[in-house]
């Protein structure tokens, strides 16, 4: 991975998700709600989690922000639906270490699905918070649900 081409940051899959915004819209009966804000740019997200029997059933979110933050929330919605809490934690850990890898970790596609398209963000440190916004909201939301 290198910074040679801006498409390494804004991969086609990322741009697709930024337009499609999977999971966009709040849930009617959320088990937990979390609000995240990126103080450096004002991007924000409200994330709903519906969970039962230790499994995340679905994610809904609203908010506004850059292509990276919007795509990241969209990808997250696809990935974590149907996962147990432990599996969510593994995803979160894998995603975070990919973003902090400065280009050395392309991400585990089996674990992270389309979100591996955000691996290029690790070479743009000011944008890591954009990609993390939805994920820290997820982490916060999960912590509000009794284990």
């Amino acid at each position, binding site marked *: 991975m290198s910074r040679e081409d801006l498409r390494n940051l804004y991969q086609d899959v990322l741009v697709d998700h930024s337009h499609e915004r999977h999971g966009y819209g709040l849930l009617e009966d959320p088990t937990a709600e979390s609000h995240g804000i990126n103080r450096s740019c*004002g991007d924000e997200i409200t994330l709903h989690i519906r969970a039962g029997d230790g499994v995340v059933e679905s994610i809904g979110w609203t908010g506004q922000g*850059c*292509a990276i933050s919007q795509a990241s929330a969209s990808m997250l919605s696809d990935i974590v639906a149907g996962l147990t809490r432990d599996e969510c934690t593994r995803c979160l850990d894998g995603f975070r270490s990919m973003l902090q890898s400065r280009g050395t970790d392309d991400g585990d596609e089996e674990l992270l699905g389309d979100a591996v398209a955000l691996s290029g963000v690790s070479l743009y440190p000011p944008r890591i918070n954009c990609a993390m916004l939805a994920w820290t909201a997820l982490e916060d939301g999960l912590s509000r649900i009794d284990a």
Partner: protein
Amino acid sequence: MPLDIDRIRAQFPVLRRRVNDHPLVYLDSAATSQKPRAVLDAERAFLEHHNAAVHRGAHALAAEATELFEVSRERLARFLGATAEEIVWTAGATAALNLLAYSFSNASSGRGGAQAERFRLRPGDELVVTELEHHANLIPWQELAGRTGATLRHIGVDDAGRLRMDEAAGIIGERTRVLAFAHVSNVLGAINPVAELVALARRVGALVVLDACQSAPHLPLDVKALDVDFAVLSGHKMLGPLGIGVLYGRRELLDAMPPFLTGGSMITSVTMEHAEYLPSPARFEAGTQPVSQAIGLAAAVDFLDDLGMDRVHERDAELGQALATGLAAIPGIRLLGPAPGEPRVGLAGFIVDGVHSHDVGQFLDELGIAVRVGHHCAEPLHRRLGLAASTRASTSVYTTDADLAAFLDGVGRVRAFFRA
């Protein structure tokens, strides 16, 4: 004779840089300008030959440092049409505005004796700002209102971001004690009607505070002709060093205001119970001063005056129009602030339909083009205009026509890249 831009550029070492394999196109001068060699050299020469604390000590270096510091003050006074006693060094414009707010606050707590009466605020008094202020000219007044029980009011803007001057006369009234506003909007580039606002304030005896951060680098300034009571400048936005700014205040006002920061070098006598303060500007300059920065700022002002502020202004207006016209002509771009042909400084905020400003900034950065993204410390203005963020290009004396061409070409390609 117009400015010789190539010759000016040769004085700015950083402009030779390449960014992402492109020549640097620096269009973020409103955030901080680049600094000419004369400024860097002035700071270095001071540190290598004269470095000492000012206004204390009897040795040769202390005397030289004091002399250079005070000559720099006179230089800034001349630049602004003021006298040296009316120039207070501060850490920046934010510090200067907080100095005013805290001095008024101290007066309101009873400090400063009878002469500070005109700065005392009470419940029922009003402070007035505008909706387009930078947070630095808003929050200090919010806090001052909170501490004193005074009410903070504001003059709104219309959908185009123009000050609602039709409302201003109703807002600036008998209760108004302070009117604080930006000379030039840091988001819109619009030049606010200083004379009209000052006239409204004079009618009711309110003090006028002018935030000149975004005008000082672009236009000739004469604080006496503008007839304001106070003005603040940021050194690093006008080719000077970081960490230095100026508070201008009419002398009789500064001498009557209680100090904000207290400590060394601002007193006439001190006992264990009490202190007497020096007149302005010393009473506002407690502690060790940013001497090399003040000298650097004087060198920046020399540089600007050598170019001639009239010529700087002429070129700046030309760049402002080129930005406005060029942006307005690109499909899917919404220009903020004055329409092409209306007065503006060399600064333009804009929206790219369907693309967030951070992504616009990232795309331009890839081309070596530096712009500002976000809310530019003017969140209320963005909210009023229905925006979360915007992108801003801002020019300086070293900006070339080629810089603008590269920028406009880049902006024209943003939407396709993001499939907006």
